[in-house]
């Protein structure tokens, strides 16, 4: 009876322990500069660069939708000078980092969990250990470093794309020109907003890599286990991103 009641808490504590243990070990390899940089570059391309088009589409369309909603009201109330500043403010502080991270969690988190999960159930991770190679050093550290570089880069590109897409709609549909659109951007978006967005996206990158790797490397139960690990990785990453974003928003702004 007691075991059943406490089981979810024990499971949650164990999961956090796995995440913390893997993070600590990975950071140790970072600190020793003992990361395979060739593999890191491979993952920057494979996981990062290849995810940028879908990220741009999602954030670009979000910018366009935001522009339709905001510009219509701004034209109605004669406050068109605030359109660009308002959209850029929201895009930089929240939408670009969060949407980029959510897209990455779906595409990259699932890819990491399924790849490492397949390696686990086919004994490839045990084979690595038997060949005197630490799986965290070889599999986790390059993926995490690659995402820590590529997700902030994707966030910057996505943010600019979102703002430009919003301007395109404001200009084409409502005739708002660039000078008016741009006028309040420098006043509303400060350097610290950009720094906070970079910090957020870096922490989201660690979250996605960590959860994907933990789910993958603890996969059990063959092909169905790989599917379960992949789903868990995406769900846990997305929930964690939103929870972490709330905490960071409160702390940073």
């Amino acid at each position, binding site marked *: 009876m007691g075991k059943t009641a406490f089981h979810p808490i024990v499971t949650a504590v164990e999961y956090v322990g796995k995440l913390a243990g893997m993070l600590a070990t990975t950071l140790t390899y970072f600190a020793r500069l003992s990361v395979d940089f060739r593999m890191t570059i491979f993952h920057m391309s494979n996981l990062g660069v290849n995810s940028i088009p879908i990220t741009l589409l999602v954030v670009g369309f979000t910018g366009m939708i935001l522009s339709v909603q905001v510009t219509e009201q701004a034209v109605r109330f004669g406050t068109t000078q605030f359109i660009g500043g308002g959209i850029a403010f929201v895009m930089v502080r929240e939408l670009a980092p969060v949407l980029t991270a959510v897209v990455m969690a779906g595409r990259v988190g699932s890819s990491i969990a399924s790849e490492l999960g*397949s*390696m686990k159930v*086919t*004994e*490839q991770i*045990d*084979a690595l*250990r*038997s*060949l*005197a*190679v*630490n799986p965290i050093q070889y599999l986790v550290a390059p993926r995490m470093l690659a995402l820590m570089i590529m997700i902030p880069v994707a966030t910057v590109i996505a943010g600019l794309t979102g703002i430009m897409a919003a301007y395109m709609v404001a200009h084409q549909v409502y005739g708002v020109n660039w000078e008016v659109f741009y006028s309040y951007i420098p006043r509303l978006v400060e350097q610290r907003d950009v720094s906070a967005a970079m910090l957020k996206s870096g922490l989201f990158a660690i979250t996605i890599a960590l959860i994907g790797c933990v789910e993958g490397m603890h996969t059990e139960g063959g092909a169905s286990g790989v599917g379960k690990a992949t789903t868990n990785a995406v769900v846990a990453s997305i929930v964690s991103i939103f929870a972490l974003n709330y905490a960071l928003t409160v702390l940073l702004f």
Partner: protein
Amino acid sequence: MVKFGPKTVLDGVNFHAAAGEIVTLMGGSGCGKSTLLRALMKLINATSGQIFIDGERVDDLSETTMNEVRKKMGMVFQEGALFDSMNVRENVAFPLRRHTRMKEKEIREIVRERLEAVGLKGVEENRPDQLSGGMRRRVAIARALALSPRALLYDEPTAGLDPLLTATVSDLIMRMRDRYGTTSIVVTHDIDAASRISDRIAMIHEGRILAEGKLDELERCGHPHIGAFLNAMRPGGAIGGN
């Protein structure tokens, strides 16, 4: 002793293999053979007891220190466990690239020599999914041999193979001992393969070693479980085939 949660998988196992010896671990499914192999490689931690490799106690070593011991050993997994993101050459070259400062030309030469030793030629560029089960296991043996280990652990190397391939892999295990002097510990269900390659067979049942010796010695030992197991595994027995 090795326990998984409340379940005791190995208990009171006292086992050794001498240099250059081929020792086979036999027993029914789930009796703890593969667990013993994994405990020797420290892929799982023994709950209690002591494990010595080459005179060095390893059960209490850290992962980093154990890696130095693992460089002196090799393990061949049941399905090969080849890295499917790499081709055959990259698989065999992997430990050399990770642990030595050899030039690419030297690595290529060693890869060619190891593949030749396991009877494979012209498959260097193939991916693991383009190989048959027998070829995958031979590549796995070549990879395990890359760093010239002093001991090789084989986890069911002939499981699921036809009789011809079983004989090929069995011969290979003996050839690796003769050619490189490696100590071999082989987990298998295959009584023919075991009798052919083994200097000694250890029978495991319910996590304990019941008896050790040559096949005929085991047959004569009079233990009811060993007799039943060997009879069942013989051609024409309850489990054996022709």
